[in-house]
């Protein structure tokens, strides 16, 4: 869906991207993480065909950003880090304007506005002026504007900034829904915790380069990571798990094992039964959290 090859971008005083290459498959959510000033926003703007590369190429759905920027614009939804809204317009008019300017016909624009507002929980604020909304509600409106035309690719720069915990949870659910609907999402953030819930892959950018040179698979919705703890150490824990169907052990010692397994509840129940039947004193079994953070620091550590 998205392919970047040896992308170099240069500001007048600094080379922001120094030969970035990556590939993002369709219907995925990719986290773009890294310290401030690493080049995340610049890369997003290059992906959005808003900035021309110094050298290298960016193709989205087979279209080159240099050759067909307007065709790419039509496929994109983009929420910048520092976005603006038309404060004097109502939510309805702001969304209507965005929908019409993104090519939705006048006959369909009403439904598109209602749907976008409903997706971000702004249905009851349609007649409120954007300037009167709280920071979190403004963020929701900005997200609604980015998705009102159902883009194939959605680029979000710090989308959860300013959202309360409930809104963040709703945002996670929305992003997963969009992904399930076939949308490809790239989300830039330097707050790993907010990406944990919905991202399946991660790109770490540091000093204008992708650490490790490629995206890392950090989370598989169908095959999550599980962490198993047993009370009494057993040296055959890895061997036992590896022999079970559908289990891929990532790491294991006498007391712990980290492995991927299908999300299916029946299959998990059977695995626990097998463990107990084999004499393993299971003290804890659950989905592993903080995988993104682990992967980040592992990669950054390698890079260093």
């Amino acid at each position, binding site marked *: 869906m998205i392919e970047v090859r040896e992308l170099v971008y240069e500001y007048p*005083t600094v*080379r922001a991207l120094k030969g970035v290459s990556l590939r993002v498959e369709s219907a995925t959510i990719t986290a773009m993480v890294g310290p401030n000033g690493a080049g995340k926003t610049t890369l997003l703007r290059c992906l959005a065909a808003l900035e021309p590369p110094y050298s290298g190429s960016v193709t989205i759905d087979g279209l080159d950003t240099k050759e067909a920027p307007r065709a790419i614009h039509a496929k994109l939804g983009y929420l*910048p880090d520092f976005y603006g809204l038309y404060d004097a317009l109502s939510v309805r008019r702001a969304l209507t304007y965005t929908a019409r300017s993104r090519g939705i016909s006048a006959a369909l624009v009403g439904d598109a506005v209602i749907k976008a507002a409903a997706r971000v929980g702004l249905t009851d604020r349609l007649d409120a002026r954007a300037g009167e909304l709280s920071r979190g509600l403004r963020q929701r409106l900005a997200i609604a504007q980015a998705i009102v035309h159902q883009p194939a690719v959605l680029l979000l720069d710090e989308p959860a900034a300013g959202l309360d915990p409930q809104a963040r949870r709703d945002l996670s659910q929305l992003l997963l829904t969009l992904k399930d609907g076939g949308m490809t999402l790239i989300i830039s953030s330097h707050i790993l915790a907010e990406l944990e819930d919905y991202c399946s892959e991660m790109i770490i950018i540091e000093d204008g380069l992708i650490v490790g040179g490629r995206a890392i698979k950090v989370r598989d919705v169908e095959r999550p990571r599980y962490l198993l703890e047993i009370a009494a150490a057993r040296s055959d824990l890895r061997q036992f798990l590896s022999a079970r169907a559908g289990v891929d052990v990532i790491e294991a010692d006498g007391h712990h094992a980290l492995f991927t397994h299908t999300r299916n509840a029946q299959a998990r129940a059977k695995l626990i039964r097998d463990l107990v039947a084999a004499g393993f004193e299971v003290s804890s079994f659950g989905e592993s959290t903080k995988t993104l953070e682990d992967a980040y620091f592992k990669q950054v550590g390698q890079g260093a």
Partner: protein
Amino acid sequence: MNPEFQRNLWLELTPRRMFPMVVALALIFFAAALTGGLVSGPGEAARWLYYLIVVVWGSRNAATSVVGEIRDRTWDGQRLSSLGADTMTWGKLFGSTAFNWFGGAICLAVILIDLIGNRGPVVALIELVYYLSIGVIAQSAALLASLIAAGRRHSHSQFGVFLYQAVGLAAAIIVYLIWATADPAGTLLARHAPADFIVWWGLTLDARAFLLLSLALFAAWMLVGCVRQMRLELKMRNGPYVWLGFLVFIGIYVAGFDAWLTGWQSLTHLDVVARRLLLAGTTYGAIAYLMVFLEPKDRVHYRWLGGAFAKLQFGPALGGLQGWMTAALGALGIGIVLLAWLAQTPQDEATVGAMLGFLCRDMAVVVLANMLTRRRGGDFTALVMLFALYVLLPAIVRGMNYETALVFFFPRVSDPLWLSPLLAWAEAVLATALAVGSLALPEEKVAAARAT
């Protein structure tokens, strides 16, 4: 309806704003009709109010239409929209100034009533075209200036907006002065004295008809310029043909005023063809100087352009030429024809040859200054370099009583005659070599760094 125009109407034409405008204008016209002292009646008041509302205030709103979006961080969203450049341009130009045109329409109605009553419907119609043209030219000039600045990622501060508005006002003042010059008595088509005629391409034309048509044509070109600049903002490519069309138009238009040069003593020996070529070539040169400062000096684009020419991909390369390059090439082309035409006057040939050399040198100097100055300010550096070349160093040379060395700095009659063009072109080659060399510096540095 154009979504951008509609959005602007939502913001601009609210009853809360329109009602006070109507009341205020009605009160002013009523006061003018009663007193007749400050201004001579509602018609005169309407003229001044039109200039204030449509030209002064309108050009500010036009200048803010894009700059305001950049400042309020909504411009990226607009650039990603599906709106075409022409839709976006007219939506902004007439949408952001909708409130001004609302007030202006009331003023125009009063002006027309006044004119029809006092000077007849023909004059009223001509004045209507004039007032509409001056409004559109002022606003589109301000929008064009702001778009050019946006392309160069320049200021979106209040001072920046003021500068872009000033460009609009300057365009309006030029239009006003030209119109007033052609109509010193303040009457239109009322008399056809000899002063009311213009000689153009040897034809004697009615001055006001000619100027009215010229105004309309320049207003149209201004709008075309806005659309092309908007295309660049929307990341669309501009083909070369519209710009070439403008150059052909302006060359023909300006060359037609050859009769004006007959009063210039140093040019009296030139025949009509030479005068016309000189006018067109000088105009292209002036446009090249203007555009080389206005257009972004993008290292990436220049490298791509060089690569395209090196690979003999002439179609894309010629399409990728910037406005200043095409204008400079136009000046060179006309200059070469002029050189051939002036074969019998070697002194003029040498001067024209030197002028062309210095033009090329100066273009290269501007590019070089921009490549060497990595922060913004390359154009300022170029201006300083050109100031040194044209003012500072010649002043030093003069101070040292070494006048013959001035041939290094200006097109001058030299002994031998070929020395002046030779030096000019030697400087042009040197400056071009340095400019081309500077384009490759950062990439080579990176390659070297990677190698190590």
